């Protein structure tokens, strides 16, 4: 049984691997180009980068191709890849006030400095299935790009594209709750240290920045629907690219490139237990790679909800939110149920059979405190 069975197990997994590749390729359609995935499935790439915790559109595109479009799997591949990389620097904090803004909106004010810029969003389109997409040709694409390019107002191209934030106005007016001096401001690196609870805010934000979008959405949604105490408004949502800088060994700050991020500041009013306390606003912050409105908004909601005192709502409970929105861990553990558990099961069977045997033995003897039908 020994040797043959080992071959069997090994063989099975090798065959399964070949089969997976077969399923990916069996229609013999033309191979997807990484550039195509990167540019035409941009938002899937952004999601994979965000959950894979690595800013690399090319590698995220490869991962998507390798996993046949399964975003969990692709993010997992990217995370595993990330582990092989050496960390050379920690960047300087990103200054999103410098962001080259592609999209900037606020739900809290009608007019904001620089205006409401919708940017590339499907929010106000009608989601009608466009079957013409099935027969797109490269010529159509080129024609569209030419027409679109002609629309650009060349004089306006030189205008400044970075703007102050909406919350700067609130700050000036003294409407924002000042930073709590007792707040834990430890700057943790969750990829280097296990998170412990209660976690400092830096850890909570990092965990959420690479959390699974659907999981965050569930928790944020629950908070809004009544299983929570936070009633937020979008103070500002921005999407665009930001410069990344690091300090070189001599201490000089150097620009190394830029990344695209979505940033959200959610405004909520704080409830106070003290009488005559000044009502103020608190900001819930969200930031993630690429364009992902849903994730950034829910991060903002949850950042605030995890700082409220009311322990009852699941969205307020840091251990609940952070442990269970970790996509790679969640996918792994839920799926691990597929692993053989027959020994564990056998152990349980043994107990139950014993208990039944004891029960039958007891029924024939009679014992003190045995219950009759009416539970007495």
């Amino acid at each position, binding site marked *: 049984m020994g040797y043959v069975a080992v071959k069997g197990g090994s063989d099975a997994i090798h065959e399964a691997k070949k089969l997976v590749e077969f399923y990916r390729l069996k229609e013999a359609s033309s191979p997807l180009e990484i550039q195509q995935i990167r540019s035409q499935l941009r938002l899937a790439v952004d999601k994979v980068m965000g959950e894979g915790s690595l800013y690399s559109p090319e590698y995220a595109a490869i991962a998507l191709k390798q996993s046949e479009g399964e975003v969990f799997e692709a993010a997992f591949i990217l995370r595993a890849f990330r582990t092989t990389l050496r960390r050379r620097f920690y960047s300087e904090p990103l200054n999103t006030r410098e962001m080259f803004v592609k999209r900037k909106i606020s739900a809290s004010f009608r007019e904001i400095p620089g205006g409401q810029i919708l940017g590339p969003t499907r929010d106000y389109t009608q989601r009608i299935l466009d079957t013409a997409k099935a027969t797109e040709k490269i010529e159509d694409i080129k024609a569209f790009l030419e027409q679109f390019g002609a629309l650009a107002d060349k004089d306006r191209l030189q205008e400044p594209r970075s703007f102050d934030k909406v919350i700067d106005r609130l700050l000036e007016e003294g409407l924002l709750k000042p930073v709590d001096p007792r707040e834990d401001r430890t700057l943790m690196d969750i990829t280097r240290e296990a998170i412990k609870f209660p976690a400092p805010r830096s850890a909570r934000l990092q965990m959420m920045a690479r959390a699974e979008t659907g999981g965050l959405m569930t928790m944020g949604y629950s908070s809004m629907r009544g299983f929570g105490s936070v009633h937020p408004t979008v103070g500002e949502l921005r999407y665009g690219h930001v410069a990344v800088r690091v300090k070189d060994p001599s201490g000089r700050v150097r620009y190394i490139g830029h990344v695209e991020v979505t940033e959200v500041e959610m405004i909520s009013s704080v409830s106070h237990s*003290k*009488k*005559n306390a000044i009502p103020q606003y608190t900001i819930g912050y969200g930031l993630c790679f690429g364009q992902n409105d849903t994730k950034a908004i829910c991060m903002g909601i949850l950042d605030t909800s995890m700082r409220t005192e009311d322990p009852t709502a699941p969205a307020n409970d840091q251990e609940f939110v952070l442990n269970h929105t970790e996509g790679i861990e969640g996918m792994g553990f839920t799926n691990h149920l597929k692993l053989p558990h027959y020994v564990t099961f056998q152990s349980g069977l043994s107990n139950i059979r014993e208990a039944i045997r004891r029960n039958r033995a007891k029924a024939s003897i009679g014992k003190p*405190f045995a*219950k009759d039908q009416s*539970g*007495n």
Partner: protein
Amino acid sequence: MRNRTDDNWLLRVRHLTKIYGEPDEHTLERTGPAHNSNICPETQSIVACAEIGFDLYPGEVLGIVGESGSGKTTVVRMLYFDVEKTSGAAWLRPYRNAAVNYLEESNQKKRFIRNHLMGMVYQNPRDGLNFRFSSGGNIAENLIMAGHMHVGAMRDRSSQLLIKTEVPITRMDDQPGSFSGGMQQRVQISKAIANNPPLLFLDEVTSGLDVSVQARVLDLVRELQRELGIAMIVVSHDLSVIRMLTDRTLVMKHGRIVESGLTDQVLQDPQHEYTQLLVSSQL
């Protein structure tokens, strides 16, 4: 009852104080019965109780009476470690022969004191019982915390206690959720006295119950006290409970003690105007 001398007390409390918020140096002066308020006008901090002091002797029953907001429950909660004190001290004779302020001991030592030397019965059974355990399991929890490890012996002890508190032993393996309020309180009492503690706290234990049920529970408490000789601190807003159970009484208002003495004297001949008001309105 023994003679009360200066060295045979069971529990001594001095200057026990609890303030919520951020007080300043005038907060205590600006709150209390003279000001008719617990809240400091300058800092908004709340003085739940301040400068509480008393001695309790073995086998003695002390009552603490007052309305809600008087701070009576806070005193007991601090002595039982449910609430962290702001300042003050308490010494327990059976704990290191009263050599240390036990309120400042480490968490582990506090648990030792709680498990071996004290019992607590809360107004709401949900505070004192674990509703996911059976009533026997609740009692076993206290026995286990005091180091007992024999299930048979623990079940015998639990049966004994349930009989003593008039809970049918056939319900020993049932969860308290299915019991009446009175029976839940009686299970709580069993649990609290499981390890024969020298000191028992009772915090408004009958306030949530029907009047007829109250009487039964109070009778039980009195019986147990007589039989076991446990010292008790009974917190209540109800003077008839105080009259029935206690030897001595503290009257509290807005966080301070306004009157203290033998229960009979305090009730028959109240000195402070607040006590007079209480007595005349209730009895």
